[in-house]
């Protein structure tokens, strides 16, 4: 255990440099990273490279299977599916990114503070989490929407503000066990400040579960967005997102399977990529696996 402290003090190679070296060796993770970067790039460039307009209807064409003009077919309004998926990706990826970042930030800070300080502060903070857990999440979101109006960024934020609870619990549990470990006591005895200990020792050690949980949060956030949009609280037609495309696709999967398959495939690929990358990151970042 002392090794880790020494290593940092030596400043030979930082945790992050180490991680990057290890990550590069993990081919699956790199594949995931490349796929995600590609998706992000396509999303950024969508307004310029999309073959059609996302709201362009062609009712006479209706739902048509993939063809030369429409590579992924068209939906019941005759709108190009490829374009819809590209535009949907913008919304879904943004939601995934922003909401998860919000959840991550609040959750890690909250959980780490509660777990590290402990005692009465911990009790109060975690009871607050319990209360928020008990609060029906729909009511919370609906209230937010009523007070602040329908706004897509508010929606992202609201989802994040709901998703942080589990994160806080996970981090707190981790921190509580870490706090009692010898290497933390050693750090204390070396005279490090509390803040340094949290930053240098506690947080890096909680990264594993946090990363895994984050990769799980992103898909659930995307689905949540679809659900809310569907209820009229999120994005509205003619805009779209992957979640919405899938939930519409499910309805007609027997008649027009391509309306479900392509958005489903896109979401699955994204989630796989995220999971591989998450897995790789966890292996790379976990200080406990870094003793080679």
């Amino acid at each position, binding site marked *: 255990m002392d090794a880790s402290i020494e290593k940092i003090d030596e400043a030979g190679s930082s945790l992050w440099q180490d991680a990057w070296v290890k990550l590069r060796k993990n081919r699956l993770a790199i594949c995931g990273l490349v796929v995600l970067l590609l998706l992000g790039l396509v999303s950024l460039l969508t307004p310029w490279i999309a073959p059609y307009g996302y*709201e362009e*209807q062609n*009712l*006479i064409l*209706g*739902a048509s299977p993939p063809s030369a003009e429409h590579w992924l077919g068209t939906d*019941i*309004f005759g709108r190009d599916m490829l374009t819809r998926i590209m535009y949907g990706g913008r919304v879904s990826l943004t939601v995934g990114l922003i909401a998860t970042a919000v959840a991550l930030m609040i959750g890690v800070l909250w959980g780490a503070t509660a777990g590290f300080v402990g005692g009465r502060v911990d009790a109060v903070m975690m009871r607050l989490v319990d209360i928020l857990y008990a609060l*029906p*999440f*729909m009511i919370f979101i609906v209230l937010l929407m009523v007070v602040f109006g329908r706004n897509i960024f508010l929606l992202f934020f609201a989802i994040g503000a709901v998703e942080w609870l589990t994160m806080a619990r996970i981090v707190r549990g981790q921190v509580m066990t870490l706090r009692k470990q010898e290497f933390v006591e050693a750090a204390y005895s070396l005279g490090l400040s509390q803040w340094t200990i949290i930053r240098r020792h506690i947080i890096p050690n909680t990264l594993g579960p946090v990363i895994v949980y984050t990769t799980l949060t992103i898909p*659930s956030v995307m*689905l*949540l967005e*679809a*659900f809310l949009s*569907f*209820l*009229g609280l999120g994005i*509205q*037609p*003619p805009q779209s997102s992957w*979640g919405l495309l*899938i*939930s519409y696709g*499910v*309805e*007609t*999967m*027997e*008649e*027009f399977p391509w309306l*479900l398959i392509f958005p*489903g495939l896109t979401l699955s690929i994204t989630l796989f990529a995220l999971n591989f990358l998450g897995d790789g990151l966890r292996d790379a970042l976990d200080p406990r696996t870094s003793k080679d």
Partner: protein
Amino acid sequence: MSQTTAYQNHKTATQSSSTHTTKTSTAALLFGAVMMVFLSGCGTDETNVSKGNETGTLHWGNGTEPQSLDPHIATGVPEHHIISSIMEGLVTKDSTTLEPKPGVAESWEISEDGRVYTFHLRHDARWSNGDPHTAEDYVWSWWRALQPALGSLYAYMYYAIDNAQEYYEGTITDFEQVGVKALDEHTLQVTLENPTPYFLQLLDHYSLFPVHRPTLEKFGAPDERGTRWTYEGNIVTNGPFQLTEWQINRRVVVERNPYYWDRDTVRLNKIIFYPTENAVSEERMFRSGQLHYTNDIPADKIPVYKESGDPTLEIAPYLGTYFYRINTNLAHLKDPRVRRALAMTIDREQITERITKAGQIPTYALTPPGTMGYYPPSDLSFDPEAARKLLAEAGYPNGEGFPVTEILYNTNEGHRKIAVAIQQMWNKYLNIEIQLLNQEWKVYLDSESAGDYQISRASWIGDYVDPNSFLDMFLCGGGNNRTGWCNEEFDRLILDEAPTAKTHAKRLEIFTQAETILLADLPIIPIFTYTSKHLVSPAIKNKGTNLLDQTMYKEIYLESDSGSNGGDN
């Protein structure tokens, strides 16, 4: 019955807890295919339908959770189904021809001048708690329905009765002067303002149904809305069935009423009404033998059912119009030219052929064509060029400066699809920006009534077969008007001229004049004339089909050896 929630696939959102729904949707998304296998697999075992056929239990897809079971408050079709099974008016109607048939009244006489109706009530008519059911019940119930504090949206249904309008509007305060009297315990005399050809049909409408006075008084003031008198265990009714269970968003169960006068005719023991908001899952429920009858069919499934010649598919003419209400109080929608421009840029043929797909007929007028020989006038047509000119004249050349406008609809797949198509048509032809907003059925009804909308999806199903059932909706301040539109000439034609018309032809002419006024101003945008469409299990017998899509539950019976639903599709 009035507005339907249903029209196509209702998608959504059972109002269960969020986590539950999220989980369900996740499961549906990821394991849709697996679910299908599972669902079709369970069709072979004991199902609701096969058990129901044995026990006389009818499983009925009812579209949505009822807003209320109070007959003087409800306004929707889903409510109508339940209310018509547990309550009965003086007169009922034939399930196929819609001819009036004796209900609580076993006979009636009409005076020479057609203004005085004398009803003879059955001596064996009883409430579901055994109380005798008398003429006084009607006098009291109608008094209650006309209390302004109750805010019945259907109060205008009473205007055929002498002095009812005056009483409702407060110009007279003595209910004695209103034309309804109990001559004795079993004789009710109703005096009309004018001879009203459809008056007997009105009596089968729930807004004129009687309510049980002691029950209402037990749970609050008679003119108080939303008291607990309609809850399970409290409600006392006079129909073939009685309410025995009401689980919000799960089911409403009615069972045979042992005191009903015609109990020997009733063959079903029980009806279970399900709030099937999502037509896609409703159709799956039907195929897996969980429902005898669906409220709706997803539009995209209709061609599939038609191709395979499935006998469970039932599409029939339906006396209803699908239209958009416009809130004429809003500055940018006040100008009739704007409303006309909007109406002229909806390509209705595209909508009925490509989106709704059940043989709906594009319409440019409110009243369905052919209602009692009435063919509505209309000079509207699909004409984007002229529409752009109108919009420019109204001060929005090329749509510039036109505020972002919102279309409100109740959460339903079919409504959404139509709204998405119209959104795009308006954007394309008029260059104006439209947003969509969906709300759950009850919330949507409230928003619409409160005028808290800009443009709202709406529909109207005839309450009786007469143009009046459509046109009197748009009287000034009428409970179902909701557009803020008011025209004195229109009111005069509907309230004074039409009822006193000497001949049927003259009457229709007056309706034509009135509808011309309405269509010149267009507080509404007519879109198409409905067809009714359901999946009906072959086990259901003796259910007539009719233009109003109303069901006489007391006549239905189930035959157990009729095989399973639907077969494969």
